[in-house]
């Protein structure tokens, strides 16, 4: 009897050990460790860092980047890229303001914005697949087009929003800002979508080997267009959040976000050559970017140096990715 019990416990121990070692080997784990180390260093340098208010502040900053990074990750896993996320976000903020001026109910505004945002990015998806233009060029063009329209519509002036749709950006549930909750919901859905559904599996297949995916009966073009459509919807969502936070739509809001977003995705373990990456990793990546930005503020680093630092981090992350692929 005793011996059986012993055997059982040792078996349990073994499986527990396997789980731990599996966890330690996973990519997300090393990114998570990096995040902890970063938080530790910043909290030692600045006592404000761990204050409740600051933590929610950081989380709020992370939320927009995190939501965009989920969509960007899906695109990067298929082997594509979207540089227009920042300006489409800005454009969608402006659209939200216009819709709000029509005194529409928030629910209608919400869905209308999601559809418009999705349509805008679907155009990028169609151009890359049907006319076979490099996604880098298509979305670089789209970045300029979206920004141009934002400026044209607003005449370069911010538009204030007086509608309950701003709740998405400025509301609280208990002490928690609504954007933070939205980010976690998006991340959870994104994670399940990528790891447990048919289209999610197809995204990885296309990024891994497009030719083999085609020969396995996957409609490759549809998969690529789909990830762009999802990206557009997420741009609309973040556009509503960002404009809602300030209760104002800035035509230039979101410009430069593509850097943070792509850096977050790559830091989170996705490979720019496609086929690899996880939503959990990407959210942690977004957290690293958010904490970095926050720490610059807390430590009084000049805003101009922040811009330089984000560039350095982005190149560093991509360099790591490239070294990793080379080693394989």
């Amino acid at each position, binding site marked *: 009897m005793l011996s059986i019990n012993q055997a059982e416990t040792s078996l349990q121990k073994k499986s527990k050990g396997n789980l731990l070692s599996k966890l330690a080997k996973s990519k997300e784990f090393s990114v998570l460790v990096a995040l902890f180390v970063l938080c530790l260093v910043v909290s030692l340098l600045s006592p404000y860092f761990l204050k409740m208010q600051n933590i929610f502040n950081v989380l709020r900053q992370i939320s927009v980047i995190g939501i965009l990074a989920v969509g960007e990750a899906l695109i990067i896993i298929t082997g594509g890229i979207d540089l227009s996320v920042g300006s489409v976000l800005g454009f969608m903020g402006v659209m939200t303001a216009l819709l709000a001026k029509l005194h529409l109910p928030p629910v209608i505004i919400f869905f209308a914005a999601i559809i418009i945002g999705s349509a805008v990015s679907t155009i990028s998806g169609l151009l890359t697949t049907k006319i076979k233009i490099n996604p880098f060029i298509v979305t670089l063009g789209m970045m300029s087009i979206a920004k141009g329209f934002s400026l044209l519509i607003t005449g370069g002036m911010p538009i204030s929003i007086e509608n309950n749709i701003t709740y998405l950006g400025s509301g609280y549930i208990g002490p928690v800002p609504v954007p933070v909750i939205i980010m976690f919901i998006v991340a959870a859905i994104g994670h399940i979508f990528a790891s447990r559904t048919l289209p999610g599996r197809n995204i990885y297949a296309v990024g891994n080997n497009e030719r*083999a*995916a085609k020969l396995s009966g996957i409609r490759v073009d549809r998969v690529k267009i789909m990830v762009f459509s999802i990206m557009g919807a997420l741009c609309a969502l973040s556009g509503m959040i960002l404009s809602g936070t300030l209760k104002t739509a800035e035509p230039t809001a979101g410009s430069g976000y593509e850097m943070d977003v792509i850096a977050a995705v790559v830091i989170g373990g996705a490979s720019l050559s496609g086929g690899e990456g996880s939503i959990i990793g990407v959210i942690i990546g977004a957290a690293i970017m958010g904490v970095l930005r926050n720490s610059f503020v807390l430590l009084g680093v000049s805003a101009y140096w922040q811009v330089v630092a984000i560039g350095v981090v982005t190149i560093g992350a991509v360099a790591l990715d490239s070294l990793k692929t080379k080693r394989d």
Partner: protein
Amino acid sequence: MNTGVLLRIESISKSFPGVKALDGVSFDILEGEVHAIVGENGAGKSTLMNILSGVYAPDTGKLYFAGKEVQFKDPRHAQETGIAMIHQELSLANHLSVMENIYLGRLTRNRFGFVNYKEMYKKCKSDLECLGVTDIDPDTLIADLSVSQMQMVEIAKALSFKSKLIIMDEPSSSLTRKETEMLFATINSLKQSGVSVLYISHRMEEIFEISDRVTVLRDGTYIKTLNTKDTNAKELVSLMVGREFNKTFQRKIKKIQDGEKPILEVQGLSYGKKVNNVSFKLYPGEILALTGLVGAGRTELVQTLFGLYRKESGKILLNGKEVEINSPTEAIKHGLGLVPEGRKTQGLFLGMKIRENITMANLPKLCRFLFIESKNEQEKAEYYVSKLRVKATDIEQQVRYLSGGNQQKTIIARWLLNNPKVLFLDEPTHGVDVGAKSEIYEIINNLASEGVGIVLISSELPEVLTLADRILVMHNGRITGELSREEADQEIIMEYATNQLNKEMVK
């Protein structure tokens, strides 16, 4: 013959993740000899060649070239030392001229540093003439040459480095008989001038025709070096496979019954230049081999049938009914399957798991409301892994870590899961070791006996003769011959494949 040692290979080892490709290989290459290397796929031939030509560095072991130890930093360094490699896939720049290719990186310049085309043209012409080549103009673009002419250019390029050793990897694989003879004449004249040639080939008759000595490799280890004239094909084969080669897989020929209806019928199918008015019938339970030289259009034919290319004319009938197949997705719905050529380029998702690779073409059926039923998926994958005896730690292993044979079984499993009515197999045993090969033969045979119609593309004639019930030979996009297994042998097939029996269609 000079008997000085040109290159001494001393206990060279090289490992890749999961495989020991070479294990303590040592032998000598003499000056002015033609030295053949034989071994099954995966025996380590290409790894060894890549080490000798500076592509890989060995993990351990030494190379002595002309008595001095050498460590190559890169292929360029090996070339400058005197070892040049002619790859199986020729590595010429298609849109440059012959002379630009030959002197790439060291173009003839005038005193202002500009390229002196006139001078280079003259030099190139005389270099080619030294090789006995007079039909290639130095100004021609590589893209306009035939494969054998490209090979000559590669050789000229190798010689322009003053190479002492030229490595040729399967040089004759895409040459006609006549072109091969020209190649051999060149090799002989190289030998006369004191250049050594390392010759890799699967074709026994060539090895006996051209080589002085032959070295056998098996599973990454050195087996033996023999004088070619003192050995025979049977001895070499048994050294290569490590056992007496008499137990071969034999399939009982399936005869088509009178009145039997074809499962697949193709009428006048055309696609571009590669598929030209092709018609054939395939019966249930039949293995129909499609053979011919590389580039004859076999792959394009099956990929057109599979909906990857839009056919320009012709009809496809399945079970007597005409079908329109515009994409692989539709082909799969109609019960077709394709194990494509080039495992890694067209077949596998290298970064994904065995489980995911197996279920890829069948996933929609394993889903409920777009959610993958993971338990069901897992069971299906487990079942086929054990049925086809895929050797792996578990189904969650990434396919990139499997051996060639097990990777191929994984792709075959993908299609078995789909219960195909017709299965196209494009070079299914390419780069697969002997053991896995006979297992794959058995799988194919079993499928046929379950009534699946099989189209087997293969360049290995022994494989065709082992498995096929009927044989179609293609040349330049056309079917040039149809043979039953009884009337087929390697010679006849090669004649059809090179189209030497013009228009003398059998049946």
